[in-house]
Structure formats: C-alpha cells, structure tokens
C-alpha cells in the first residue's frame, strides 16, 4: 500500500431508504486523500459531503465499497475504534463539562494517564488560545470560542485524520475569516490530515491543498485549487467554482468554431460538439475593430474594485468580462456600445460533457 495515502475510498456507495424511495447519497465515489494534506470536499447542499465524512468517521456503514485508513480496511470498524476525530458542525460540546474536561474526554477514554491528560489538555488549550477559559462551562462561550474547544477536543487524541463538517458555517463573516487562518495554522502546526467540508467555494480555494468537487453523489473533479479553477473538467465544476462564461463550439480543422462563427484555439478534445469556458477576468475589451469577436455591451455593474461588463455576442450568447475599475471610476464604456473581445492566450478551456 502507498504509505502517503491517509484515506482511500474505493467505489463507495451509500444508499438511504429502500426500494422506490432509495436515495443514493454517494454513487461510486473513489478518492485518495494524502497524508498531511488539507483536503476539502466542496459541493452544493445535498451532494453527499456529510455522508462521505460520516462514512470515514464510522457513523454510517457504506452500502458498497471499501474505506482504507493508512492502507488498513476500516469499512466496518465502529467509530470509537477509528483513530479519526470529527469537528461537528454543531460543535456537539458536552454541556455538563468544562472546556478542559471537554478537551480531556477523548484522552481519558483512550485510558491515558492523568499526568499525560493534563499535559496534553494544557498544550491543546494553548494551541487554540483558550487557557484563560479552561474552567468555564461550554455554554458560557461565544460561537468562536466553542469552535476552538471543538477543535482542541478533536485534536487532543492526535487522530490520524481530522474531519471537519462545515465548522465555520455558524460564524459571522469576520470570525469566519479569522478561523480560516487559524484552521490553516493548526493544520500546518500539527501536520494532521484535515478533511474539510464546505459549500463555500472561496473558503475551499483559499484553504485547501486539494479540493474534491462533488455533485449529486458523484465526485466531479479532484485537484489543487489552481487546477480546479483554471482547468475545470466539466460544466458543473466550472460554474460551481467562481464565475465563468460558456461558449458553444464545434470542432474545426483550424481549432474550434464558436457558435458566432469565429474560429478559436483551445486544447484538443474528443467530441465534435463541445463547450468552451473562459473566466470573466480573462476576457479583454478592445476597440471594436481590433477584437477577435465583436460584441455589444448590454449592462455594466460597478462592484468597487472591478466592474462587470455584460455583453452579447452576434449569435446571442451572453458573456461577462470583469474589468478593473479605473481610479476615477469611469470606464468610458456605455451600455449599447459595440466593442471588441479578445481571449487571454491559453485561457480557453474545453469541457467534457
């Protein structure tokens, strides 16, 4: 077995319910999560992220497939036998225990000696900067503090993998940003493999080493944030991560012929009929005569640092370009104006259908 793989899910299927009412929350998911990486499962609500996490934690048994931890089959192991800990979305802190007792819980269950527990709890509380609150009841903590307790509690037994199910979704924006940095720091400092679930694409892009994009029980694409953003495999990934433009095209001896009749260059693909995609920031606006494609401005939306310019192509396709707003805020563009479009070389991507 490859020693660099922490978690390996192989053809995992999870069905809920029976017969006609059966829902396949996970449909043949295969995935390798490397040791020590910050791996994010990203996808819209109901796509099966929590289900996959619960299978790894052992709260659910898969209907099919295998789950390996460090090469050993843990598919049917109960959760209290897996060296894997979870940070729950609701935190699920023990209300009858203090902060320190919460953090100590896992260590005590593992039968660690009293001195070892005390030392480790102190270390964990220092790590999440909660020493002053050690003897508080958890009900007397703010959301951000509870979050830290949950983290410390899950990290204390030094799990091989830490699972985090949308741990930041209950926090307000400012705290969320702080905790994103905090989480990343914890992951780097502890070197523990993090499997992080979110449906916030920005969160995924900024924090992860690698991202697995899910939709409807399927794993759509796995890759680094850059790969996922710049080379999305299919239409779902392209549209879920950031904003993008879709252009229908057919294969042509010279490259691809867009529906508006213009021939462009893009990486070769199998299919004759394809969808090309290009990010709004990779469209350049030039005077009408100098552009590759003529377009007409249909709307301008000012966002402060940048301005979104909505345009329609001759065949009616809608595209959006993101332009940096000039310092005086006047772009010199007008709705209804004709303009030329240019693609940044190499930016056009071909999507699998």
């Amino acid at each position, binding site marked *: 077995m490859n020693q660099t793989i922490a978690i390996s899910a192989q053809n995992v299927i999870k069905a809920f319910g029976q017969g006609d009412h059966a829902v396949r929350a996970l449909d043949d998911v295969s995935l390798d999560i490397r040791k020590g990486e910050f791996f994010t499962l990203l996808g819209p609500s109901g796509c099966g992220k929590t289900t996959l996490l619960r299978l790894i934690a052992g*709260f659910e048994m898969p209907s099919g497939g295998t789950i390996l931890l460090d090469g050993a089959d843990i598919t049917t192991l109960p959760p*209290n036998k897996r060296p894997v*800990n979870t940070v729950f979305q609701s935190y699920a802190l*023990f209300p*009858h225990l203090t902060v320190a*007792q919460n953090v100590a819980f896992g260590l005590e*269950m593992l039968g660690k000696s009293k001195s070892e527990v005390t030392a480790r709890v102190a270390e964990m509380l220092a790590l999440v900067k909660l020493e002053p609150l050690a003897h508080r009841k958890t009900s007397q903590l703010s959301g951000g503090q509870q979050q830290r307790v949950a983290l410390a509690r*899950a990290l204390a037994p030094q799990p091989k993998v830490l699972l985090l199910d949308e741990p930041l979704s209950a926090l307000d924006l400012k705290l969320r940003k702080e905790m994103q940095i905090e989480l990343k720091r914890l992951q780097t400092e502890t070197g523990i493999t993090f499997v992080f679930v979110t449906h916030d694409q920005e969160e995924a892009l900024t924090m992860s080493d690698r991202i697995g994009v899910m939709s409807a029980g399927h794993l759509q694409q796995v890759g680094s944030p850059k790969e996922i953003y710049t080379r999305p495999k299919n239409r779902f990934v392209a549209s879920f991560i950031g904003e993008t433009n879709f252009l229908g095209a057919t294969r042509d001896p010279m490259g691809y012929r867009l529906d508006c009749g213009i021939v462009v260059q893009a990486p070769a693909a199998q299919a004759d009929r394809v969808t090309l995609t290009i990010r709004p920031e990779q469209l350049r606006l030039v005077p009408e005569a100098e552009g590759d494609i003529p377009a007409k401005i249909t709307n301008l939306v000012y966002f402060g640092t940048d301005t979104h310019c909505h345009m329609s192509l001759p065949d009616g396709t809608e595209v959006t370009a993101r332009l940096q707003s000039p310092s005086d805020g006047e772009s010199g563009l007008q709705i209804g104006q004709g303009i030329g479009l240019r693609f940044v070389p190499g930016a056009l991507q071909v999507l699998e259908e």
Partner: protein
Amino acid sequence: MSGPASGKTASSKPASGNQTSTGASAAEQALVKASVRSGWLLSTPALVLLALAAVGPLLIMLVYSFLTPGEYGNVEWGFSTDAWTGILFTRDVFDDTLRLEDAHLSILWRSVKLSLMTTAFTFAVGFPTAWFIATRPQRQRGLWLFLITIPFWTNLLIRTLAINEILRTEGLLNNILIGLGLITEPIQIIYTDTAVFIGMTYVYLPLMVLPLFAAIDRFDMRLLEAGYDLYATRLQVLRRIILPVVKPGIIAGSILVFVPALGAYVTPRILGGGKQMMIGNFIELQFGQGRNWPLGASLSVTLLVIVTAALLVYVRFANREVTRG
C-alpha cells in the same frame, strides 16, 4: 407560586439599572423603592395563601405534638413530650422505663426501604421507557405519552384495587401461573411488602417517566456521536454523557417518586393489608382507632423532616456529582 417570582423580576430590573447609573437622583431611587413595594404588594395574595395552606397546618401539627391525647381523640391542653418519645419508644407500664419499640422501628424502616426500592426500580424501568418515547418520531410521541399518563385518569383507589385483583391469592396472576402449571399452590403476594412494592412501582412510574422524558427530549443526540467519535464505549457514553446531562430529570423524577412513596397511604393500606403498614398508615391509625393525635402529629412532623433531610442530602450529592463530571 408565580406571584413572588414575578414580583421579584419586576423589582430587580429597575434596581440593576440604578446600579449602573452613577448619579441616581432621589426621584429615581423613590421609583425603585416604589416598584419593590409594588412587587411585594403583588405577591401578597400568594404569600398569604402559602402561609395559610402550608405553614399554618404545620404549626398546628407542631403544637399538637406537644400536647396530651384526649380520651376520645383530639387533644387536651397539657404539655407533654410523650408523643415524641413515642415515635421510637414505649413506656413500660410497670417501671416507667423506655424501651425501643420494634413495631414502630420496622414501620419506619419499611417505609424508607420500600420508597427507596420504588424509586430505584421506577428509575430502572422508567429510564429505558422515557428514552424509547423520546427517540420515537414526533408524531408517535404524543400517543406513547398518552398511554403513560392513562393511569392518572382513574382514581388511585380503583387502580390499587385492580392490582389487588391481580395479586390476590385467587387472583389473575396466581390463576395464570397455576393454569400454566408453573405452580401448584397459589403464592402469597398480596399483603406482603412485595405487593406494596409492586403497587407503588405501578402507581409512581409515570411520575418518574415524565420528567425523564422531558430531560431526554432536550438531550442533544449528536452528543452520542461526539462520544463515540472520542473513543467512548456504549457504557461510557451512558455513564459519562447521557446520565450526567439528563441528571436534572433524574433528580426531579426521583423526588417526585420518593416523596409521595414515603407518605403513601392507599397502596400499603390495600395491598399491604393491615399488617404491612407504612408511615402514612401509621399516622392515620393514630388519628383514628389509636386516638393518639399528638403521636400522629409528631409522626407527621418526623415524616416531613425525613423527607426534607433526604432531599437536601440527595440534591447536594447530585450537584457534587454534576460539578465533578
């Protein structure tokens, strides 16, 4: 009860506001005083009622316990501590010495023992029951709770007589056991401590289940997963998470069962016959055939003291358990 409570909140708000403002004017202080006064005023009816209904009878009992018994019941106005020594001792007719009265001791002991057993057993049965109900889908819970509370709809006397009908020598239970060939002779259950225990368990079970249900219903089931995730076994999850978290429900249920069980009258009367008396029956005896009202009074006060002491010890103990974790 709500009178004093609401009066208190009404008065405490302006008072705390006053503390924060540095230069409170005389007018403001007068206002605070007025609202404190109106708080007391509002709770007066409740306080009067409390005094009349709780403290009054208690005082009468206390006074009666130091008087001498009248020949045909009631009391005569002469000071005596006989009623108090009479709880545990009898005075020898010949040499006037005090002897421990075994019969009284056994009644006291039986009362405490049966009440504790009832409390423990209703908990043992009530906890899984309450857990079961609390984990049913919302729609089914109403039905289960309704079933649990059905006995409340019938008079206690009738329910106890029904148990009597089941347990008596030619009763349902014995007939079934004989019919099945498990026994040949009827077993004597009725008029034993066992019968009283069975009856009290039946009668007080809902009082244990309901507060337990309320506590378990509020229990966040996600804590179970958190426990398993942190390497706890099922037993550890029960002992370290479930029981401490639902502890308020356990305390409430135990008090609700133990207190009335200790003073039970109807159940031991019917199922224990005349012999297996508990304090309640013994007290009644003093006010009836015994014609010793002072002894009845001193026994009543003793019962109250036992209950209060038991509660104090229990709550203190339970709280220490909670903080210890």
